[in-house]
């Protein structure tokens, strides 16, 4: 393994989240390790005609302390999730007050279908925003930065379901190059809307196990029938190890490695050739300065689709070889649903959970595996984790891989 370099190392020193499994890290950790599912029947609009009528939706999002509840209630849910997550993360890091004292706080969020969602919500409410470009002045990232007076650069990005890992890499680079003093990175997605659920359903991507929501998301299980949409927002505060140490900050993990690639195969179908996605994993390991035998745990992308799960198993075998037989592998999408552009961010928190708690969250609903992996099925497994790897693959052939290391 590589030696730590305080000049280049970047730590996660704060987290904030809005998920179906909780709105703070402790609750999320408890639910993940207990194997609780956040999936339920969709509420809020009639789903009688939908092929898939289930999702890991967000309940009411708590109002951040800095915003008046009446103001907050008027905001789009996407913005609510982003505001809650970002403020929570900065408070958790102990940097909330410092942001107005000259600290340059960058913000990088994966947001996949921001305008589609905003235009739809407006249209459902009787508006015509989609026909009126003059109303589209700011992105969600812009609005969060303005409201919180964040003075670092901002960026919205999307590699579909592979997006959030890219945010960690951009944030890390900005810190190393001095573009920001701290950087908040993560993802936000609110795709469980009438048209969002319909378009994914008509794509035949979603589980139709409507009568048994909690058991619908079953990655790596022979009886799977598609993924389950999830909603949420996750924000992580990144700062240099040197700066974090200086102020005595508590670190959740080091952002140790990142790698990315493209399949260049199909708009929505993953490549049957494991080499391109394998290249992303290989680059992440190299960036972290480690070999495959150094990895203690893998959080798989595994969404619960037959093609995708099998492809990822081939990718992992290609890179890890026989080491894979001893590395506990799990897919927490079995509990959280698939948060799309925010998936990588919430799975980074699942990896942190494994490192902090010494236990790997389970893949619930996994009764009959059809891949040859060291899977953590149904119940969490006690296991010492120092280095953990998280895959995220997406539509558009995007592949990303993040390596986190305990500090």
């Amino acid at each position, binding site marked *: 393994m590589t030696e730590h370099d305080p000049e280049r190392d970047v730590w996660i020193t704060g987290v904030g989240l809005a998920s179906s499994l909780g709105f703070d890290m402790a609750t999320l950790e408890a639910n993940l390790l207990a194997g609780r599912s956040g999936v339920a029947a969709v509420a809020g609009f009639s789903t009688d005609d939908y092929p898939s009528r289930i999702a890991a939706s967000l309940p009411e999002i708590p109002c951040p302390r800095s915003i008046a509840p009446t103001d907050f209630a008027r905001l789009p849910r996407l913005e609510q999730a982003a505001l809650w997550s970002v403020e929570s993360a900065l408070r958790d890091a102990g940097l909330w007050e*410092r942001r107005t004292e000259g600290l340059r706080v960058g913000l990088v969020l994966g*947001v996949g*279908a921001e305008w589609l969602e905003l235009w739809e919500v407006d249209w459902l409410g009787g508006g015509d925003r989609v026909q009126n470009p003059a109303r589209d002045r700011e992105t969600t990232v812009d609005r969060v930065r303005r409201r919180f007076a964040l003075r670092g650069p*901002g*960026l919205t*990005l999307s590699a579909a379901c592979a997006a959030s890992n890219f945010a960690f890499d951009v944030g890390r680079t900005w810190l190393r190059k001095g573009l920001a003093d*701290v950087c908040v990175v993560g993802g936000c997605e609110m795709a469980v809307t009438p048209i969002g659920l319909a378009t994914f359903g*008509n794509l035949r991507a979603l589980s139709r196990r409507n009568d048994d929501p909690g058991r619908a998301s079953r990655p790596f299980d022979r009886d799977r029938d598609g993924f389950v949409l999830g909603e949420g927002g996750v924000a992580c505060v990144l700062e240099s190890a040197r700066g974090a140490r200086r102020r005595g900050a508590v670190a959740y993990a080091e952002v140790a490695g990142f790698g990315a690639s493209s399949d260049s195969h*199909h708009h929505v179908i993953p490549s049957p050739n494991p080499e391109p996605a394998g290249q992303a994993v290989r680059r992440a390991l190299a960036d972290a300065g480690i070999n495959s035998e150094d990895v203690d745990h893998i959080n798989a992308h595994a969404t619960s689709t037959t093609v995708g799960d099998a492809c990822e198993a081939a990718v992992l075998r290609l890179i890890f070889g026989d080491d894979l037989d001893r590395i506990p592998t799990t897919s927490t999408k079995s509990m959280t649903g698939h948060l799309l552009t925010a998936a990588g961010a919430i799975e980074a928190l699942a990896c942190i959970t494994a490192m902090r708690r010494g236990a790997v969250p389970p893949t619930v609903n996994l009764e009959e595996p059809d891949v040859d992996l060291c899977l953590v099925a149904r119940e969490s497994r006690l296991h010492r984790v120092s280095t953990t790897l998280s895959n995220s693959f997406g539509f*558009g052939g995007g592949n990303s891989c993040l390596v986190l290391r305990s500090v």
Partner: protein
Amino acid sequence: MAAIHGTDSASLRRAAAPRVLLEAEVFAHGSTRLSRDEIAAERRRREPLAEGWNPIGHGTLRNSDEQTVAAVASLRGAIARAGRPAADFDGWGVLAAPRFLGRSKLTVAFDQFKAEGVWGVTPHLIPHFALHAQAGTLSLILGGHGPNLGIGGGRFAASEGVLSALTWLESGVAPGVWLVLTGWSPEYRPDRQGEPLAETHCESVALALIPASSDQEGRIKLQINELETPGPPSPTTPETLAARLDGLLASPMTGPREIAHRSHAARRFGLDGRPGKADRRIALGTDDEGRLLIDLKAPGGASA
């Protein structure tokens, strides 16, 4: 300034002149400005981006947003200008920064949903109109295995695209980056059938960017500079960027220069016009806070 993270030195840096945070060299560029009819024709083109490149699959662009089709057209220009085989771009990343992708399609999708319910909703919304879609499609067409990423999506998408590309080159995620910026001018304003209420054109510029190096003095550079005092936010556009690049390349980098003494004076072309003419910076725009300035840095003697 709060003194955490060694910000004493950061404060000193910001007190000085604007500093270059990130930069890259423009290896090649191409641009287009297309009407909707021209986009329809471009959508049907199947020939490769250039000789020796993979042909474009029959259905690859069939459901794509018009901005994505325009992006492909601008890539053709950049690749032609680069004059290199596809293998030279192996591993390059693809960054695509559209503005308001899918607006025209959504008006139609809403009416179909209203009329036909769930089954009237096209399954193409996410694969072709979400933020990742343009970059994913371009990656498919380019045929490389470098990473691909959609950027921005809103009014400052072009600025975010430049920032992302220079960030990628700095981090080493890819050895080179295809950066494609697209948008409608004026912004697309659809009626209920998705047709534009006023004439509009789709602009696109494609840039082939490589890490800045000191051994290529003649190349145009893209830079992100930090401003000491934030200015008013100023989004750049594909058309602005393309015009500036075209202007720089149209002007001779090295003008004719008189050599020898007067009686034997002879015009010699192609000699370097330096020294005596400093590099020129051309401001293209800022980020949405007016803090990060995007500059084109022209080699000495060039004019915009």
